[in-house]
């Protein structure tokens, strides 16, 4: 009984899922019709074009410095492929520190944002309290505020709290995500209230219900939120750039941009650094491709 009722409800909750690729629109049309071949060629050319910049970077990263500076357009340098740019970068030690900083702060931001946003979203979804409507409107309205407008007062505030050049100064301003509260609340609203009512009748407290019933049912949305918050935190440039001046505390993007080699522009090394910096996100994309694509397509994640 429970299961069939659940099925009915879950079907109703279905959001528009991105369906897989369609077959040709016209049934019976030849799969290799001329228009399709043309379309395929155009598509392939565009894809190659879009991959090229990154491939150029990778090719340059595997050249010797002299080859990279020579302007020779070949894919492989005259001296042959080499990993000296990578070893030079990695032996400097900076990249490890920056990557670690990025990892620590991004994970912290993700966990904290997820926690506080889910708790707040649950309150807005299930609990009644004075000022609920107004507070929600205020929070939704704040989505419009561009973070760039706040850099001055935020920096001033970090100065006042002595948090400039600290991990917390980097993390704290980034945990406020009203858009995520909105998205999570919308998701919680769609979970049938009966599931919780039964537990409430049994005397379970709100927190217990939240933890044991609501959260497990919310894994997909929590995963999406986590992934996008993580990516946003990892790639964030402006705030980390402003609040961190100590080069041992910089995140990867800021470190790459700010600290240059004492030897001036070394093209192969710069490209090697860029490739190394891109790798974590590429790995994340490969692992979490489905969630990311679905998150963007259905909830407009990442639009900020």
């Amino acid at each position, binding site marked *: 009984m429970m299961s069939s009722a659940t099925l009915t409800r*879950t*079907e109703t*909750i*279905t*959001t528009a899922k991105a369906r897989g690729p369609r077959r040709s629109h016209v049934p019976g049309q030849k799969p290799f019709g001329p228009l399709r071949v043309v379309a395929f060629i155009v598509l392939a050319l565009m894809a190659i074009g879009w991959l090229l910049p990154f491939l150029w970077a990778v090719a340059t990263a595997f050249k010797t410095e002299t080859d990279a500076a020579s302007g020779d357009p070949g894919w492989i340098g005259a001296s042959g492929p080499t990993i000296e740019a990578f070893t030079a970068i990695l032996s400097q030690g900076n990249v490890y*520190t920056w990557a*670690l900083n990025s*990892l*620590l702060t991004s*994970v912290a931001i993700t966990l904290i944002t997820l926690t506080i946003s889910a708790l707040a979203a649950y309150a807005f979804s299930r609990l009644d309290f004075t000022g609920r409507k107004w507070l929600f409107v205020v929070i939704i309205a704040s989505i419009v505020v561009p973070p760039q407008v706040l850099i001055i007062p935020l920096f001033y505030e*970090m*100065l006042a709290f*002595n948090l*400039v*050049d600290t*991990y917390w100064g980097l993390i704290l301003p980034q945990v406020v995500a009203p858009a995520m509260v909105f998205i999570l609340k919308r998701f919680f609203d769609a979970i049938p209230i009966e599931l919780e009512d039964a537990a409430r009748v049994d005397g379970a407290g709100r927190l217990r219900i939240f933890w044991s019933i609501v959260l*497990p*049912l919310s*894994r*997909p949305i929590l*995963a999406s939120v*986590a992934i996008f918050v993580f990516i946003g935190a990892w790639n964030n440039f402006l705030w980390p750039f*402003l609040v961190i*001046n*100590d*080069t*041992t*505390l910089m995140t990867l993007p800021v470190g790459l941009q*700010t*600290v*240059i*080699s*004492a*030897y*001036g*522009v070394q093209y192969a090394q710069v490209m090697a650094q860029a490739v190394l910096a891109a790798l974590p996100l590429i790995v994340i994309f490969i*692992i*979490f491709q489905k*969630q990311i694509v679905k998150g963007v397509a259905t909830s407009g994640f990442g639009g900020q």
Partner: protein
Amino acid sequence: MTPPLDLSRRQFLAAASLAAGTALLAGCAPGAVPGSATQTLQFWHLLSGGDGVTMSSMLDKVNSAQSAFRIRPTVLAWGTPYYTKLAMAGAGGRAPDVAIMHATRTVGWAPGGLLDPWDLDRLAELGVDDSTFPTPIWEKGFVGENMYSVALDAHPFVLMFNTDVCDAAGVLDSDGRLQETNSPEEFLDQLRTVSGTASGHALSYGYLGDGAQMWRLFYGLYAQHGLAIELPVGGTAVIDKDAAVESLTFMQTLLDGEIAAAQNDYGSAIAEFATGKSGMLMTGVWELRTMQAAELPFDATMIPTLYGTPAVYADSHSFVLPHQTNADPARRDLTYRFVADMLKGSFDWAEAGHIPAYLPVTESPEYADLIPQAHYAEAAQHVVYDPTAWFTGSGSNFQGEFGAAVQGVLLSGDDPAAAIDRFEERVNTLLRQPNPADPEGTFGS
């Protein structure tokens, strides 16, 4: 809806191990090295390229010569971003122990409390005082009563020339030095002669998108008229329009595509000269190493005095003490030692092309043997800095404003007089503003 667990097991495991690994690593987050016998001093500078190599080796020497302190250098990109980062570090109270600044920038910073003054007595104990510096350079270190910067060098804007190309053109004299030219016309003739033998242009000069480069050449030419731009606080800029227009027009003439490429950026100009394609290069002395590394047959001299008064545009790399909320006296003391050591060892810095500010080095016999440095050493006598104001100096708004106002003249043949007027207007706007580091003028100077 699909079953509640949307993450595949693989993804969940990947995420979980990531989180667990992070938690482990968090335990070993980078922290301060516990106080050991050797103090590590943080040193920020903005020297890269040939300079960066030299600076690195000088620092290595200082580090290995003693064990009381160890310098940890950080190199940040030259220009505005460097000064911004340094200011913010100072404002946050966590600045490096010592840093390099251009001497011309200190007047804008000191009033804001971003710098701590040097203790002259302590410096004198270490052999650094006014007798060991050329007077204009020593005096440039002062803002008001206090000294805020100790100069390492003067680095002028000079003329390098390819000895092979110029010899073939017949413009060298019997000593192998460039024949003297005393007027714009003479210099242009000389250049045209050289363009006959050069495979590229006669002159390389990079300026595109680079206000600093445009300003360096312009102000040197302007100062050769025996004039200086004055920027009185609360007043309006004093600019001799005729001299300014004449200087700018001369620059425009150079960039005709025959004498010099019509639009070269900094890197392209260096490359053109370094690969032997052009006869001459207008550049700062800091590119000396680049040319030596390229094994180019070249020499250097002051930019010819075309308008009567010898004048050389220059700035100085100087040591400053960024403000620290709680300066540790022991570390400060070590910082003084570091600066004194660097000054005494600045012969190496001369090898990078700069003119050391420390007289015991420049007056030594070894220095007289340094070629081509000895050939432009007299530039130190004719050094001209940026006009003094809070907004001027290397890598400042001021030089960027100049570039924005006059690039059209050099690139597209705009009217020089109108460009100078535009520049004057922008300067006056800046003059009207109080020093933002000290908007209410609370700094006693």
